[in-house]
C-alpha cells in the first residue's frame, strides 16, 4: 500500500473508530432528528409545505457538513501537533502535502457519511412534496463544494497555528462570516449590495441553488452561475492548501 493510501486509510479509521471522529456523526443525527420533530410539533413549522421543509432541512445539512469540515480541518495539523503525533508523521517518507491531502479526503468522506445519514430524513420530510429527487444531487454537489472550501481553509490554517483552539476560532469565525449574510432580511438581500454579497458568498450560493431547485423548481441553467462561484472558491482553497502545506513547521 502506498504511503498516501496508508494515510487516507488511517484518517478513515480514525473517523469511524476514534471517539473524536464518530461522535460528530451521532451529534449530526441528533440535530436532524430534533429538527424533524420540531417540524411536526411546532404550529408554525407544521404549516410549511414539503418543499419549504426540505429546503430548510437541506440548509441544515450543508451547514452541518461545513461545521464538521471546520472542526476536522482545524484538528488536522494543530491537533496532531498538540498530541505529539505530527513529528512522528513528519519523520516518515510521507510529505506534509501527502498528509494534508489525506486529511482532506478523510473530511470529504465524513461529508459523504453525513449525506447518507441525512437521506432518510429528507425522504421522511419531503417524499410527498415536490422536487425531492432533483434535490438530492444538488444537495450533494453544493455540500461537497462547501465542505471542500471550509476543509481546505481550515487545514491550511491548522498547519500554521500552534493549537487546535486557535485554528478552530478562526475557522468558525470564517464560517459565521460566510453564513451571516444569509440571515439578512429579504429586503436587504434584494438591494444591490445584498445581491453582490449573495453572488460572491459561497454559502449564499449554495443556499440559493437549493432554494431555486427545491422551491422554485428551476433547472440547471439557473444554477450555473452560483455553482461556478462555488467551484472557483473550491479551486482557490485547494491551491492555498497545497501551497501552504509544502512546508509545515513543528
Amino acid at each position: 500500500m502506498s504511503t498516501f493510501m496508508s494515510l487516507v486509510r488511517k484518517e478513515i479509521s480514525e473517523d469511524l473508530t476514534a471517539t473524536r471522529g464518530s461522535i460528530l456523526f451521532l451529534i449530526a443525527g441528533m440535530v436532524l432528528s430534533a429538527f424533524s420533530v420540531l417540524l411536526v410539533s411546532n404550529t408554525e413549522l407544521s404549516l410549511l409545505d414539503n418543499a419549504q421543509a426540505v429546503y430548510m432541512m437541506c440548509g441544515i445539512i450543508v451547514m452541518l457538513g461545513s461545521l464538521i469540515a471546520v472542526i476536522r480541518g482545524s484538528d488536522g495539523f494543530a491537533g496532531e501537533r498538540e498530541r505529539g503525533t505530527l513529528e512522528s508523521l513528519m519523520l516518515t517518507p510521507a510529505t506534509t502535502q501527502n498528509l494534508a491531502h489525506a486529511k482532506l479526503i478523510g473530511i470529504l468522506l465524513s461529508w459523504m457519511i453525513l449525506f447518507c445519514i441525512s437521506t432518510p430524513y429528507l425522504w421522511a420530510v419531503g417524499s410527498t412534496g415536490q422536487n425531492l429527487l432533483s434535490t438530492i444531487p444538488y444537495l450533494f454537489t453544493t455540500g461537497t463544494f462547501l465542505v471542500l472550501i471550509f476543509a481546505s481553509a481550515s487545514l491550511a490554517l491548522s498547519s500554521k497555528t500552534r493549537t487546535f483552539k486557535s485554528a478552530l476560532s478562526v475557522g468558525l469565525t470564517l464560517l459565521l462570516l460566510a453564513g451571516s449574510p444569509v440571515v439578512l432580511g429579504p429586503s436587504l438581500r434584494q438591494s444591490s449590495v445584498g445581491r453582490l454579497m449573495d453572488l460572491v458568498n459561497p454559502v449564499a450560493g449554495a443556499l440559493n441553488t437549493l432554494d431555486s431547485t427545491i422551491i422554485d423548481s428551476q433547472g440547471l441553467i439557473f444554477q450555473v452561475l452560483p455553482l461556478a462561484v462555488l467551484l472557483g472558491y473550491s479551486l482557490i482553497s485547494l491551491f492555498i492548501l497545497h501551497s501552504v502545506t509544502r512546508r509545515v513547521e513543528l
Partner: protein
Amino acid sequence: MKWHSFHVALIFAITAGILLACESASMAAQSPSVEISLERPTGTMKMGDTPVFVGTVKNIGRQPLKGLVVYLSLVSLKSGDEHPVDLEDWSAQKAVRIDQLLPGETNTQKWGMRLIQSGKYGIALTAVDPQRKQPIVSDLMSFEISPKPTLSSSRILPVAIGEPLLILLLLGVVRISRIRTA
C-alpha cells in the same frame, strides 16, 4: 261653507305630499355615502398561501367623511358548521381607520392573509361611518382554500427516533470489528 270632495282630496294630497317629503328626507339622510368593494386575489388559494385582499372605499356622498373604520370579516361556510373565524391567526392587519375621505375620493387598503386552514370560506369588507347608523358591507366573496400535503408525523417520527439509534449501533459494530481484526 260646504266641504266639497275637491277640498278633501286636496287636503289629503297635501298631507300625503308632506309625509312623503319627510320620508324622503329621512331616507336621503340614511342613504350610503360610501361604496366599498373587495377584489378577489389572483391565483389558486391553498393552505400556507399568503394572498392579499384589496379593498376599496369610495366617498359617493357630497360631504367629506371622517373617521371611517374599515375591516374584514371571515366566515367559515362549511355546510352544517358555519361559524365566524377569528382573524387573529390569519391576518396581521386589523381594522383600518381612514381619517378623511373627500367626496369622490377613493381609498385602497390591502389585507395580507395567511391561509392556515383548508375549507370553504366567505369574506366581506365592512365600512363603519360614525355619522351613520348603518355600516356598509360589501358583497360576500366566497372562496375555497385547498388543502396541501403537509408533513406526516407517522413518517418523520420513526426516522427521527430510529436513525440516531442506528448510527450508534453501526459505530459500535465498526469499533468491535476493528478491535477484533487489530
